[in-house]
């Protein structure tokens, strides 16, 4: 038994100050001495830390960081060190369940899959395959997603496949496509090792990616520390370390960013050679940001003009810059527009594609990058363009199906629309995998109603009987990480293999095997009558994915299970040109915007309308990055007399997603057992609320109740963490999920829902 640091008390662990090469520090926590170690990587945030799983007598007994891994150099965060305990939880699902007479009762796999397949065939016969929808996850592996993508697109031929990645990472993908032509992060985590400045926008890295934050803390403690600009309405752990912290009012990111862009231009802190040779759209950008003087920004956003100028001075004079973006941008009003303005900061300065320079449009979940790459969400496999017939023909040839089998008459249906089709009854079978929308979707009252609707068959594939699974008609018990083999990719394009360490409990099966079983039972065939899915093992699926990715930006063709198992994480693209992966995309400032190669022809940032292929080709950027401007827009719901306060949601460091795993790890659960309502001291005084008082927060959509936590937030704003649902509550306790309150609306471009603003009122309930 080893625990070489207490990650609950000291989240980030002891400092190893540095500049240049991040020193190793191996974090380990085991509850018994393992009899062997199995190579893996952590799946409890999007950082993707390399780790080994300790196994004793067929059970997981701990983890340790992999010192050789480029992502973490041995470190692990509190979620990684503790989260594995969920695998051993006594309430794992061990047998399929089918709803009979209103009750979920145990069934055999044959019964459950037989029912699913019979229902699928019946629906296709009566209503076409467009009556079947998939709501998948950011938690599965490449092999799962690719198999799912192929069976959905070339087997069923349904356009309705997306994931909860729509809630966490859709804007990252959209912003990258818009600026650079395709998805894919330009830089690497290693750029933090030397960079002179870091801009964190709506990204509480200290709580979200604790190990990446450790890298910054170690830089701050070493020689030549970087300057930090943090944009966040709350005084987070991240904001506490900032050189300059800008705390804008909810919904005003675009105004702040336009103010910064204007100052860069006015101060002459832009690289005119780079702009001239490698971008399009500069004139329009100058015009749009022109009116956002520091005074005007201050009046709208509450950010003092002097602070904005101080931030612009840092961003304008640093010689290298890492910019990072997360949910504070993605889930706010104008998410894509704001994320693109962050890209524009690096582009105006020409700071991209070289050491110390990166834009990290972060992912929320460990494998959401792969949902995007493999076509299990609203994208096509290999960052292909749904509106480019040549790309569809490539896939049709690869899968040996007729091109029209692959839905490409419109963009693949985004998750919010999939739920809407369920609500209006045209989707009649919804298959949910490894996610818990009854806690994580906006406006939960509506989501429960949809899932309870007669005429919608709900299939839930999960390891636990989550709030969502309890509403299912068929429950398929799934293996967890550590119980199956596969690969996945983190935010900075690092691909890891995670080997099976132990057997899943009872009859639980790997997601991959469930999808294969479905494809076989549905008897999906190619044009020559051979089985559509030609692989039986994860490794064969990976080989098939390599072929699909070859020649595209996310080129995996130089990787293999053997190579990934021999070392540790390797970045894509990995091919003949980059046999060991590439730390930077676009080193020559040639971007992926060529009309024949790009993943998207672009969008109108205001309406979300997609640019037509003809219009794009008429002004083909041909390898130049696009500087797309956006002006500020007023949020759709604002505080008023009835609902006088702003509301926003976010995370706590000890939990992930809806606590399905972290809530079953003893120390994590004890560290953060309960939701809370955070409010400013001024507001607490006005409502006569003391620390710990029960506070009910109400919006036009619902109510949530939790104890008060006072301070660390701007007056007029109320915050709740989104992790907590009904699971673990007493039956008669009032609802505490933040998403009871949130809005059903979404960004016009990325379709990511707006979790970061709503109008609410509060009252003390334990008077």
């Amino acid at each position: 038994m080893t625990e070489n640091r207490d990650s609950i008390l000291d989240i980030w662990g002891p400092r190893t100050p540095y500049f240049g090469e991040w020193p190793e520090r191996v974090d380990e926590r085991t509850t018994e001495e393992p009899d062997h170690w199995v190579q893996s990587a952590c799946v409890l945030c999007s950082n993707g830390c390399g780790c080994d799983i300790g196994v004793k007598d067929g059970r997981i007994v701990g983890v340790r960081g992999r010192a050789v891994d480029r992502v973490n150099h041995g470190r692990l965060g509190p979620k990684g060190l503790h989260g594995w305990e969920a695998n051993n939880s006594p309430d794992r699902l061990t047998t399929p369940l089918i709803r009979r007479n209103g009750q979920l009762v145990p069934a055999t796999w044959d019964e459950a899959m037989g029912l699913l397949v019979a229902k699928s065939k019946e629906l296709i016969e009566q209503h076409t395959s467009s009556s079947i929808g998939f709501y998948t996850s950011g938690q599965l592996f490449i092999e799962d997603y690719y198999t799912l993508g192929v069976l959905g697109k070339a087997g069923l031929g349904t356009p309705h496949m997306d994931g909860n990645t729509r809630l966490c990472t859709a804007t990252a993908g959209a912003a990258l496509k818009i600026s650079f032509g395709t998805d894919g992060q330009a830089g690497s985590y290693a750029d933090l090792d030397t960079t002179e400045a870091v801009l964190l926008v709506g990204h509480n890295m200290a709580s979200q990616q604790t190990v990446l934050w450790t890298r910054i803390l170690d830089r701050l403690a070493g020689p030549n520390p970087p300057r930090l600009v943090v944009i966040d309405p709350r005084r987070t752990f991240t904001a506490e370390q900032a050189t300059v912290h800008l705390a804008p009012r909810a919904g005003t990111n675009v105004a702040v960013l336009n103010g910064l862009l204007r100052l860069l231009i006015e101060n002459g802190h832009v690289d005119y050679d780079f702009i001239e040779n490698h971008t399009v759209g500069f004139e329009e950008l100058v015009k749009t940001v022109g009116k956002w003087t520091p005074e005007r920004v201050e009046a709208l956003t509450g950010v003092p003009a002097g602070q904005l100028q101080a931030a612009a001075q840092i961003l304008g004079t640093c010689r290298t810059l890492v910019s990072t973006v997360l949910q504070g941008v993605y889930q706010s009003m104008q998410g894509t527009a704001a994320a693109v303005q962050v890209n524009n900061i690096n582009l105006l300065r020409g700071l991209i594609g070289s050491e110390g320079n990166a834009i990290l449009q972060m992912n929320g979940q460990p494998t959401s990058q792969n949902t995007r790459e493999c076509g299990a969400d609203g994208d096509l496999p290999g960052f292909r363009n749904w509106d480019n017939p040549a790309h569809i023909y490539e896939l049709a040839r690869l899968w040996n199906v007729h091109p029209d089998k692959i839905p490409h008459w419109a963009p693949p249906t985004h998750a919010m629309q999939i739920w809407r089709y369920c609500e209006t009854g045209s989707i009649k079978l919804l298959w949910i995998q490894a996610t818990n929308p009854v806690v994580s979707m906006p406006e939960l009252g509506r989501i429960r109603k949809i899932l309870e609707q007669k005429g919608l068959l709900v299939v839930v594939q999960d390891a636990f009987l989550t709030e969502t699974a309890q509403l299912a008609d068929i429950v398929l018990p799934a293996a967890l990480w550590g119980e199956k083999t596969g690969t996945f990719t983190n935010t900075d394009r690092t691909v890891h293999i995670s080997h099976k360490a132990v057997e899943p409990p009872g009859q639980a099966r790997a997601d991959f095997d469930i999808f294969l079983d479905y494809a076989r039972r549905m008897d999906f065939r190619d044009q020559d009558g051979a089985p559509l899915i030609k692989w039986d093992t994860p490794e064969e699926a990976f080989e098939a994915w390599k072929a699909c990715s070859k020649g595209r930006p996310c080129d995996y063709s130089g990787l293999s299970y053997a190579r990934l198992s021999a070392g540790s994480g390797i970045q894509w693209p990995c091919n003949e040109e980059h046999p060991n992966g590439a730390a930077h995309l676009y080193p020559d400032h040639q971007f992926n915007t060529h009309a024949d190669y790009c993943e998207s022809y672009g969008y109108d940032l205001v309406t979300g309308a997609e640019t037509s292929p003809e219009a794009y080709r008429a002004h083909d950027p041909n390898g130049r990055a696009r500087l797309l401007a956006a002006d500020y827009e007023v949020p759709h719901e604002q505080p008023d007399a009835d609902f006088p306060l702003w509301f926003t949601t976010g995370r706590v460091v000890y939990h992930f997603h809806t606590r399905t795993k972290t809530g079953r790890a003893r120390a994590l659960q004890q560290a953060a057992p309960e939701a809370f309502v955070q409010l400013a001291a001024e507001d607490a005084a006005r409502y006569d609320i003391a620390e710990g008082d029960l506070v009910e927060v109400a919006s036009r959509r619902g109510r949530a109740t939790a104890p008060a936590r006072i301070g660390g937030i701007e007056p007029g704003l109320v915050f709740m963490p989104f992790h907590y649902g009904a699971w673990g509550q007493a039956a008669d306790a009032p609802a505490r999920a933040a998403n009871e309150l949130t809005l059903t609306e979404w960004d016009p471009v990325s379709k990511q829902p707006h979790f970061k603003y709503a109008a609410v009122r509060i009252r003390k309930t334990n008077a």
Partner: protein
Amino acid sequence: MHLGNYLGLLESSEQQLTKAFEHVARKHRDEPDIEQMCRKLSAWSREHRGRVLPFVAKYSEEKSDEPKDLRRDLFSEKRRGSLALLRDLHDLWLLTQEVQLCWTVIRQATLALRDEDLKAACAYCQPRTQRQTEWLLGRIKQAAPQTLLVAE
């Protein structure tokens, strides 16, 4: 000179489009993206009409009472169910075509007339009408297969 006539036609068309977008926003408020976007695009048309009004006054010597209320023939109140959304977006698209063509005709005249202010109004409004059209077309393309093949 018939410019005043056409400006009247444009002004009336933008007004009809303003009301039509508002109507669709209200009628389909269960479709969150439709409600929000139609409100926004309605505001665009309202603003366009405001830009046109001074020119209607300026060139008003010969104003026609055209067009007939196109909107009356569109947006049948009887439409219900999922087809209604598609048909209403379809009718909005038709109305934007009317507006678009008015702007094109007037812009041609404006170039010959050398009225710099009116030229500026055309340059501002016409691309936005185009953006209204593009959004409608994209949304119609998305809704069409599900509405025609799957929905009851």
